[in-house]
């Protein structure tokens, strides 16, 4: 199987957000593979190990993304491609999906996996937009995938219910929490990753009309949520605390 994984470099989930001049500051921030994309990488490796073939990880990003791509190679992916678009202004999900669509134009693929959302912008748009541009069927938020020949059977998380879906390859899927437990890259895997191919291309090396990939949306400003005032730690006997809590919720907060 020819398997591709879409990967994004994102803030570590432990990072606090600092806003500087209306923008999120990335100063001193630790980056990781977007956790949902990590599920996708893991699943791609498992499928490759089971069915044979090759896993290629693709990222639209900046040069720094090389680190996350190397991590995916260390986990067991075979190849990585970085589509550098640092010089590109005005990007949004439409931009990313269009660049990817151009990249996939001359590729053979059976399966494209991505994360269900990224943990920064959380739009969940890139996968479905890409599928639409490529004319591919897609299944979002999968928690299981089995491939048998040309057929994939998937489980999809629908607000707690599970849909069992059948689809034919080629297919695009996006990974939801619970799909698998991503492995830690092994130390020998990390050593080997250095020797695996990591290709860097510039977005304008692709067959793209710059006007067509221009962002459709723009961010006007970014801000932090209002700080919560200090809460009230109740005291006294537990029974008294509970009574006080319920009466507070009932009368002050008007909730119950």
């Amino acid at each position, binding site marked *: 199987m020819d398997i591709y994984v879409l990967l994004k470099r994102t803030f570590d*989930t*432990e*990072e*606090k*957000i600092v806003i500087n001049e209306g923008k*999120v500051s990335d100063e001193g921030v630790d980056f990781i593979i977007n*956790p949902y994309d990590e599920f996708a990488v893991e699943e791609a490796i498992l499928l490759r190990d089971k069915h044979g073939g090759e896993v290629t990880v693709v990222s639209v990003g900046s040069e720094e993304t090389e680190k996350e791509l190397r991590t995916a190679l260390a986990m067991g992916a075979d190849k990585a491609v970085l589509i550098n678009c640092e010089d590109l202004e005005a990007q*949004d*999900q439409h931009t990313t999906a269009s660049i990817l669509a151009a990249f996939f134009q001359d590729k053979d693929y059976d399966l494209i996996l991505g994360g269900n959302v990224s*943990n*920064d912008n*959380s*739009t*969940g*748009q890139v*996968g*479905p*937009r890409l599928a*639409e541009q490529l004319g591919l069927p*897609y*299944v979002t938020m999968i*928690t299981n995938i089995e491939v048998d020949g040309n057929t994939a059977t998937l489980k999809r*998380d*629908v*607000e*707690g*219910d599970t849909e*069992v*879906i*059948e*689809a034919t390859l080629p297919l695009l899927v996006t990974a939801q*929490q*619970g799909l698998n437990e991503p492995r830690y890259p092994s130390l020998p895997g990390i050593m080997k990753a250095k020797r695996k191919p990591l290709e860097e291309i510039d977005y304008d090396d692709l067959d793209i009309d710059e006007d067509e990939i221009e*962002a*459709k*949306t*723009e961010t*006007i*400003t*970014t*801000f*932090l*949520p209002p700080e*919560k005032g200090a*809460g*009230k*730690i*109740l005291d006294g006997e*537990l*029974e008294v*605390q*509970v*009574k006080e*809590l*319920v009466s*507070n919720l*009932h009368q002050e*907060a008007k*909730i*119950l």
Partner: protein
Amino acid sequence: MGRTVLTFAEIRENELRNVSFEALAAAKDISDGGEVVAAVAGSDDDSLAETLFHYGADRVVKVENEILDHYTNDGYFQAYLQVIQTVKPDVVILGHTALGKDLSPRLAARFNAGLISDATDIEVIDEEVVFTRPIYSGKAFEKKRVKEGTIFATIRPNNIQALDKDSSRTGEVLTEEVVINDLRTVVKEVVRKATSGVDLSEAKVIVAGGRGIKSAEGFKPLEELAEELGAAVGASRGACDADYCDYSLQIGQTGKVVTPDLYIACGISGAIQHLAGMSNSKVIVAINKDPEANIFNVADYGIVGDLFEVVPLLTEEIKSLKVGV
């Protein structure tokens, strides 16, 4: 300058979902004197149209094709596409629900249009529609706009206030017979979740458990409290990782992001990833043995104590409050 705003209403268990009314309220704001159109698929119940009028729709499009009785990406895509082509709206609004998340990017891509996902607030400033949406799972927010063309947006349930019901409102009902070819993804089966009926993303009240729950059985008192409150049960990553519950219950940066009116955190320490998923809840109650637990920093009310003592007491107290009322 009025806008035509099209909302797609969603049905669950034969009833309109709340988020559909919230979408109408948003549409009303945006329409700026224009027209609010609600499309509804997957039901032949005529009373649904009535209800949509009561909550702000000026016109209702009944989308008809029996394939739409169950959601499929290809089926609903073709249907919605046809409706959009008929109505020719300036703005399209869906709920940021499983359906909305799955379908909206594809619709936007087909129209080569911008999509604002997961909006929590919508304003019209100088003729411009400005959306507020959380980023980094609610650790920050951004204000965003679509630069040109049709505006697509999904709205997060529970954030935009629905209009008060006005039973006197009525309007024109149109029927759109849609043509649906070729379903490339087929739903073979739907397995209903084992937990109580209330969905996390739309729940007004959530009772959540963390590592302090200690076992799968430890959720029992939480479920009893949830039942009393009509609440949904959620969990922290710690509880999911420890196999006390399914990942579908996980709240936090790598799980669901929720904003209920009341969030009761039981035995949850309050890792930053968890806080990202729930700290924008309106009122937060924390119950934890450790007085130093981080969760108390975001809680409106905190009880330091063993959840296995506190939660049953709380359940009883709420029962007696109900009896008293």
